[in-house]
């Protein structure tokens, strides 16, 4: 078998051989790859043949040693994004070659959609000053970009207030902590897009994460109403999001009509601008807002998850099945503009 690294295949499979030329050969040679696969499977079984509890002191020793080489994250700002990366990564690991080629939303294939998501993740990292090298496949590209973002922010809580561009049609800069919520939002939406492309049912984020996502969308609405030429200074709509992740909110239909408590133009904080809300759960969701300059002219009521999909443009406003009372044109305007807040 001249040309094959035959003597090193088992060592490679056991993790004892780091020679990149062996890795490259195994990656492109069927017989060697099969040999390595058999040895690696056997090694995996051998490693699982025994359990023995280590001394209890080892646990704290390991944690202390780990902390000394890499500080743990001290912020929960990454939770929603990390959670979405985890479940999406699990799905991508299982896709077949045909799945990657399957047509998905917006005329893209699954691979193109994943690559688009990776590019939006990379944009946030780029705004923080980190660039990413090219990747050979969409899966590796997305994994690299999401890894970089998670690793960077996990070790740099000081960056959370740093303004970065949000993805979307209209350029908006927001603090990194909001951009991370948007990354969670887009990852969730494209996760569902990929699942739809391969005939799997959609998924929902955990309620706490969904609450953060819809709150971010609502906070962007007043500015977006103005940008769309539909701003209505001084007018507010009550938005009641039902079900898991829901809550009651008062949303102004223009950033120019900031509530008395906001005291200035739309700022950089998540609750800045004219948005005021309470992201409590729907069961106890009482109306909370700062609409002291006038009662809301309308009420819009729909499930929080449905509102999240509407924000992504996955459900057109007329089909949102929202229950509307009061000033119907104002409420429909809000829904129509909300449906443009996706990351395409």
């Amino acid at each position, binding site marked *: 078998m001249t040309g094959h690294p035959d003597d090193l295949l088992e060592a490679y499979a056991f993790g004892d051989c780091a020679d990149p030329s062996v890795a490259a050969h195994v990656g492109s040679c069927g017989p060697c790859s099969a040999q390595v696969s058999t040895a690696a499977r056997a090694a995996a079984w051998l490693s699982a043949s025994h359990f023995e509890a280590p001394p209890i002191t*080892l646990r704290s020793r390991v944690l202390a040693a780990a902390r000394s080489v890499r500080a743990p994250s001290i912020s929960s700002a990454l939770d929603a994004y990390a959670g979405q990366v985890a479940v999406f990564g699990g799905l991508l690991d299982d896709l077949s070659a045909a799945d990657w080629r399957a047509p998905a939303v917006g005329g893209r294939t699954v691979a193109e959609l994943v690559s688009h998501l990776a590019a939006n993740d990379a944009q946030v990292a780029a705004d923080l000053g980190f660039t990413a090298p090219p990747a050979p496949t969409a899966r590796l590209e997305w994994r690299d970009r999401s890894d970089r973002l998670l690793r960077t922010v996990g070790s740099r809580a000081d960056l959370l207030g740093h303004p970065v561009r949000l993805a979307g049609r209209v350029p908006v800069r927001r603090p990194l902590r909001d951009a991370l919520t948007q990354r969670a939002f887009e990852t969730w939406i494209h996760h569902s897009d990929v699942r739809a492309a391969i005939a799997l049912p959609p998924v929902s984020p955990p309620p706490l994460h969904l609450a953060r996502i819809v709150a971010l969308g609502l906070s962007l609405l007043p500015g977006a109403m103005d940008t769309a030429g539909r701003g209505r200074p001084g007018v507010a709509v009550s938005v009641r999001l039902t079900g898991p992740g829901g809550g009651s909110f008062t949303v102004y239909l223009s950033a120019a009509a900031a509530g008395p408590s906001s005291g200035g133009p739309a700022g950089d904080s998540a609750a800045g601008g004219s948005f005021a809300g309470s992201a409590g759960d729907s069961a106890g969701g009482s109306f909370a807002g700062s609409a002291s300059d006038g009662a809301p002219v309308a009420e819009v009521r729909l499930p929080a998850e449905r509102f999240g999909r509407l924000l992504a443009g996955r459900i057109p406003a007329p089909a949102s099945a929202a229950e509307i009372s009061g000033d119907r044109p104002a409420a429909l305007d809000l829904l129509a503009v909300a449906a443009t807040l996706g990351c395409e």
Partner: protein
Amino acid sequence: MSDVRSHADDTRLRALLVAADEAALTEAYDRHAPSAYALAARITGDPCCAEDAVQEAFVELWRHPERFDPAAGSLRTWLCMLARRRAIDLLRRQSVQRTHLTRLAGQAPTEPTVEDDVLGAAQAKAVRECVRELPQLYRDAIALAYYYGLSYRQVAIELGVPEGTAKSRLRAGLRLLADRMEAAGYSLSGQ
């Protein structure tokens, strides 16, 4: 279904570890330290060395969680691979000249001390039985190559056989083990 859950747990832990979430490290430790420690203890025959190997494996995971690819294997397998490599390094450092076969002979198949993971326990038992049923010649070759990281040449010297014979025994043993476990219905992704 446990296969799916296990893979989901591994991808979740990976993402959280990349994000420097310390709770993910403690979860990974609580789940997989008993496997890694048992393996390192079998290799080094020394509890202190085994502890060092396990510590280095988990610190390596914490430092570079990106290197773990859930599509290529389970987190348990990955951690055991790291612990095995460290254990073999430690063994080489401490033993100038040691007769591996003597050490092997002194290592009666140990029974597990912790088996709270019912599925893992059933699999571990099946692996031990599978290994016990392998012809002795195969078992020795596997032990020397896997537990002590010896090359074919070194395995051949230890066993007093030609290099080609050492290689074919090792390969036949590994294949039999992998095939028999799969034939018995066990799946690696379910670890």
